[in-house]
C-alpha cells in the first residue's frame, strides 16, 4: 500500500539554484579594494541592484532618452525576487507571481502595463480593463483540509455559527477601513504606501501586532486566525503575531476599491512577475552588467565612485549619481562612511528568509475524491507552515499533462530561519517540500521528475510592529550625498508596486537634479 511505504521508491533529481550566499558575504569581511587605473569607466548614473526597483529606474531613464547608465547586478540573472525560469510547457516563477490590477490613480504603473500590451482599454469609470488572458483564471484558489480540497482560501467547510459571525464581522471591519478617509481625503491603505494617510488614527495601528489587533477586536475564531496568518505569511513572510496590524490590514484593504467591492483581480502569467523583468530587460538589457558585485561605493569630491567585483577583476565607475536599489541592510557594508555618519539606522530594515521550489511534473496529481475542488492556480494546505503551490500552466489553459508547481515556504516559524535554511542541503529541502505536498498528493513522488530549490536568505522586508511608521523609511528615502535609495524596503512591505514606485521616484530625483 502506498500509504504504508516508509521511503518513497521514487525521488526526483534537482539542485539548489541561484543566490550565491558566499559571494554576498564577502562584503562582511570589510576588505579594501584597489582598482587598476585602466579598469575605470565613467557613467553618469550607476544603479546598484537589478531587481524591480533598479530595473524600473533604468526603464524610466531610457523612456526619458537618457542612456548614460549602468545597472550592476550581483547575480547571474537580473530580476531579484521577480525572477523566473524557462521550462516546458511554460515558464515558472522563482518568487513573486502576480500583480493586483492597479487603481486608475496609479498612472505610471498603468503605462507600464499598457507598454506590455496587457490592457484592452478603460471602463466607464476610467479604471483599466486588463485583457482576459492575463487575469487570473478561475478556479483561482483552493484549500486542502483533512483529506479534501475546498474552494477559496477561507475554510468554510465545517464553520460554526460563531466562525461565520466573526468572518462577517471581520469583513465589516475591512469595509470600514476601505471607506475611511482622513481630513485630506486620503485612504488609510492604498498602493503605493506613499499615498497612504499619515493620520495617527491609521498609523497607530502599526504599534501593535495583527494578532493583538484581532484579539482586541474580539476575534477568536481559529479559522479566521489561520486565514489572517496565511495572509501575513503569503505577503510578508511573517506570522500573524509577527506582523504589524497596519500591515495586516493593508493586505486586506489596499486592493479593495470601495466597500463591498471584490479585491482587485490579479494579473498573472506562467512566469509570474518574471514577465515584467523580461519586459524591462528588453528595454535595458545592454545597460545591465550581471555577475557584478558592488563592493564599495565611495562618495567623492564630485560625484560617487562605484567599485565592483566582476568575476575576479575589480572594476570601477566614476559616476555623478548612484541609485542604490539593493536591500537597505547592506548599505553600511557597501557605502564608505555610512557607519561613521549614518543617515538612517540600516538595522531597522530586517528581512526574512524563504525557500522556493519548482517541481517539474510529468502529469497532474490524481484527484482522490470526485467532489474535490479541482486543481487551481493557488493551492494552499491548511495547517501547513508552507504556502502551498502555484500551478504554472493554469493561466494558459493547459489543463492536462506535464506542469510545473511552484512551492513557497517562508521560514517564519524558526527564529533563526536564515541559518536553518542555509544549513539545509538540497535533499533536506526537497524532503520538506515533498512530504508536505504528499499529504494532499501521495503520488507527488512518482510524478515529479525534477525539483529545484532557490534559497532566499533576505527575501522580503519584514513589516513587524513599529517599523513602517517609525520614521526610518522617511529618513532613508532622502538622498545621502549623491546616492538615492530605491527599494521596496523603503515601503516596509515587499511588493512589485512599491519597488516600481521607488525606482521611479529615484530616477525622477536624479533626472531633476
Amino acid at each position: 500500500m502506498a500509504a504504508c511505504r516508509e521511503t518513497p521508491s521514487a525521488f526526483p533529481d534537482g539542485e539548489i539554484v541561484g543566490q550565491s550566499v558566499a559571494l554576498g558575504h564577502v562584503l562582511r569581511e570589510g576588505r579594501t579594494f584597489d582598482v587598476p587605473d585602466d579598469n575605470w569607466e565613467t557613467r553618469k548614473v550607476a544603479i546598484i541592484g537589478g531587481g524591480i526597483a533598479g530595473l524600473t529606474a533604468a526603464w524610466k531613464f531610457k523612456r526619458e532618452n537618457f542612456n548614460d547608465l549602468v545597472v550592476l547586478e550581483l547575480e547571474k540573472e537580473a530580476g531579484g525576487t521577480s525572477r523566473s525560469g524557462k521550462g516546458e510547457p511554460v515558464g515558472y516563477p522563482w518568487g513573486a507571481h502576480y500583480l493586483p490590477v492597479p487603481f486608475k490613480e496609479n498612472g505610471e504603473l498603468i503605462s507600464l502595463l499598457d507598454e506590455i500590451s496587457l490592457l484592452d482599454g478603460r471602463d466607464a469609470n476610467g479604471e483599466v480593463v486588463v485583457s482576459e488572458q492575463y487575469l487570473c483564471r478561475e478556479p483561482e484558489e483552493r484549500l486542502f483540509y483533512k483529506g479534501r480540497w475546498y474552494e477559496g482560501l477561507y475554510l468554510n467547510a465545517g464553520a460554526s455559527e460563531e466562525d461565520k459571525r466573526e468572518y462577517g464581522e471581520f469583513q465589516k471591519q475591512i469595509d470600514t477601513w476601505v471607506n475611511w478617509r482622513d481630513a485630506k481625503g486620503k485612504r488609510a491603505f492604498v498602493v503605493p504606501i506613499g499615498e497612504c494617510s499619515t493620520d495617527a488614527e491609521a498609523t497607530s495601528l502599526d504599534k501593535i501586532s495583527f494578532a493583538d489587533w484581532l484579539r482586541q477586536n474580539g476575534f477568536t475564531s481559529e479559522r479566521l486566525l489561520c486565514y489572517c496568518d496565511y495572509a501575513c505569511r503569503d505577503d510578508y513572510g511573517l506570522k500573524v503575531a509577527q506582523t504589524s496590524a497596519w500591515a495586516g490590514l493593508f493586505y486586506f484593504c489596499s486592493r479593495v476599491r470601495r466597500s463591498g467591492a471584490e479585491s482587485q483581480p490579479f494579473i498573472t502569467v506562467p512566469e509570474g512577475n518574471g514577465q515584467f523583468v523580461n519586459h524591462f530587460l528588453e528595454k535595458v538589457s545592454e545597460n545591465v552588467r550581471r555577475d557584478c558585485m558592488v563592493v564599495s561605493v565611495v562618495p567623492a569630491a564630485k560625484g560617487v565612485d562605484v567599485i565592483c567585483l566582476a568575476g575576479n577583476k575589480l572594476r570601477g565607475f566614476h559616476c555623478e549619481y548612484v541609485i542604490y536599489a539593493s536591500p537597505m541592510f547592506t548599505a553600511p557594508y557597501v557605502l564608505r562612511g555610512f557607519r561613521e555618519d549614518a543617515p538612517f539606522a540600516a538595522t531597522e530594515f530586517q528581512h526574512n528568509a524563504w525557500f522556493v521550489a519548482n517541481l517539474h511534473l510529468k502529469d497532474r496529481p490524481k484527484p482522490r475524491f470526485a467532489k474535490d475542488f479541482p486543481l487551481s492556480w493557488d493551492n494552499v494546505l491548511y495547517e501547513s507552515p508552507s504556502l502551498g503551490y502555484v500551478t504554472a500552466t493554469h493561466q494558459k489553459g493547459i489543463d492536462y499533462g506535464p506542469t510545473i508547481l511552484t512551492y513557497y515556504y517562508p521560514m517564519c516559524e524558526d527564529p533563526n530561519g536564515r541559518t536553518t535554511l542555509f544549513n539545509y542541503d538540497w535533499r533536506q529541502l526537497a524532503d520538506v517540500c515533498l512530504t508536505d505536498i504528499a499529504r494532499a498528493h501521495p503520488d507527488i513522488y512518482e510524478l515529479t521528475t525534477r525539483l529545484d530549490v532557490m534559497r532566499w536568505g533576505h527575501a522580503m522586508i519584514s513589516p513587524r510592529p513599529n517599523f513602517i511608521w517609525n520614521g526610518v523609511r522617511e529618513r532613508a528615502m532622502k538622498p545621502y550625498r549623491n546616492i538615492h535609495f530605491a527599494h521596496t524596503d523603503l515601503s516596509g512591505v515587499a511588493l512589485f508596486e512599491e519597488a516600481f514606485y521607488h525606482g521611479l521616484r529615484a530616477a525622477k530625483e536624479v533626472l531633476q537634479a
Partner: protein
Amino acid sequence: MKRAPLLFINVFVIATCGLIYELLAGTLSSYVLGDSVTQFSIIIGIYLFAMGVGSWLSRFIDKHIAEKFVEIELAVAVVGGFSAPLLFLSFAHLSYFGFVLYAVVFAIGVLVGLEIPLLMRILKDELDFKDLVSRVLAFDYVGALVASLLFPIFLVPRLGLNRTSLLFGMFNAAVGLWGTWLLLPLIKRNVTLLRVKGAIILVLLAIGFIKADRLTTLAEDALFVDNIIYTKSSPYQRIVVTKGKIGYSLFLNGNLQFNSFDEYRYHEALVHPAFAAFHGEPKRVLVLGGGDGLALREIEKYSSVDFIQLVDLDPDMTHVSYAVPALGELNHHSFDDSRVHVTNADAFVWLDSTQTEPFDIAIVDFPDPNNFALGKLYTTRFYNLLKSKLKPDSTVVIQTTSPLVARKSFWCIVSTLESVGFTVRPYQTTVPSFGIWGFALAKTQAFDPPTKPPANLELHFLNDDSFASMFEFPSDTSRPSDDIEVNRLDNQALVRYYEAEWRRFEQ
C-alpha cells in the same frame, strides 16, 4: 438450554448470506463488465469451486473448532460485507479489476465452504447423523431460496448493492458474535478477544451501512443500464460504450454523449444550419471536439468542402470508431475521408498557439461545461480566439446544452458570444436521449436565421417544413429576463450556472 435448534438458525442465516454475496458479485460484474451470462456463469463456477476448496480444507481444522467457526464468521463478515464497495471502488480506480473480482469471490467461497462442515462437526455430538444431515441441508437450501427471492425483489431496488453487501456482512458478524455465547462451553480461550473483534467488525459495517450513500456516489457512477462493450481510461476521461436494445451509447465520465438510435437528430441539427447560413461554397471546416466522427459524417456530405480540421483532446476518443467497429459503421468511417485532418490537442491551447488559414465554418461540439477545464471552452477568451480563425462571413455553431434543463447556462453561452461581437441565432430541437437540446448559430456579421436546410442532401430529420421552427423558443426556454453574466476565464460563471441547474436533477 439446547443449542441445536438455535444453531440451525445460524445455518439459515449463513446460507442466506453466502448466496447473497454470490449474487452481488455476479450482478456487480455484469453491471460494470457487461455480458451477464458470462459473468454469472464464471462467478457461480468460481464460487462453488471455492466452497468445495473450503469444505476440503475443513478437515485440517482439528482443534478449537467452535473458536475457528466464530473467526470464520467474522472473516466472512469482513470480506463479504465489504465486497460490493470494494469491487465498485476497484472498478473505478484499478485496471486489473477482473483479478480483484475473482479473488474476492474465491475468498468468500472458501470461507463459506468452511462454515457448514465445521457447524456440522459442532452439532455431531447432539444429533444423530441422519437428523443432522437432513436438517442442516434443509436449512441451507431454505436460506438459499430466501436469498434468491429477497435479492431481486427487495434488496437491489431498495438498498442497492453496497447496502445489501454491508447489511449481510452485519448478519454474519452477528452470527459470529452470538456464537461466542451459544458455543461458550466449547470455546476454551480468548472469548473476550473474539467478542471485541466481533463488536469492532459489526460497528465498522454499521458505519459503512449508514455512510453507504457516500460510497455509492463514489463508486456507482460507473453503473450503466446497458451492457458495456468497450471501456477505456484515457489520461483525459473514461470512455464507455454500451449496447442496449435500441442501440449503442457512448459515455464520457459517465455522461451520455450519444445514442445511435437518435444521434442523427442531434448531428443533423448541429451541422446543417451552419452550412445553410453560409453564403457560397464552404471549403474549409473546423471541428472542435466531435471525436466520435458523427459530425464529420454530416460535414462530408458537402462536396465543396476540401479541408476538415478536427481538434479533439483525446486520441483514444478519435480512435474509438476503430476500436468499436459498430461506431465506425455509424459514422460511415468518416475518419477515413482524405479531407479530414485530426489533431489531438486541447482546443483552447490549439487556438491560442496555432497559425492557420481562416475557416468558412466552425462546428464546436464539446461536452457540457460541467468542470472548469471544459468551462474555459465557452469563455469570451475562447470565442475571441475562435473569431481570429474565421473570415468575416464565416458561420459558427456551438452545442449549448439543454435550454429547458439549464436555461441560464444556455443563455449565458448566447450572451457570451454576443459580448465578443457575434450575432447569435439560437435554436433548439428534441433529441429523445437528451431531451430538448440547444445550439447557437453565430456570425460576426448580422444575419437572418436560415429557413431551410441546404438542398439535395440525404437527411433523416431536418426538412423544409420544420427547419425554421427550430429557431423559435417556447416560453419555458426563451431568454430569461434576469441578468445573466458573461462567461469569462476569470469568473467561469457558466460552470456555476450549469452546476446549480443540473444539481436539481441529482438525488
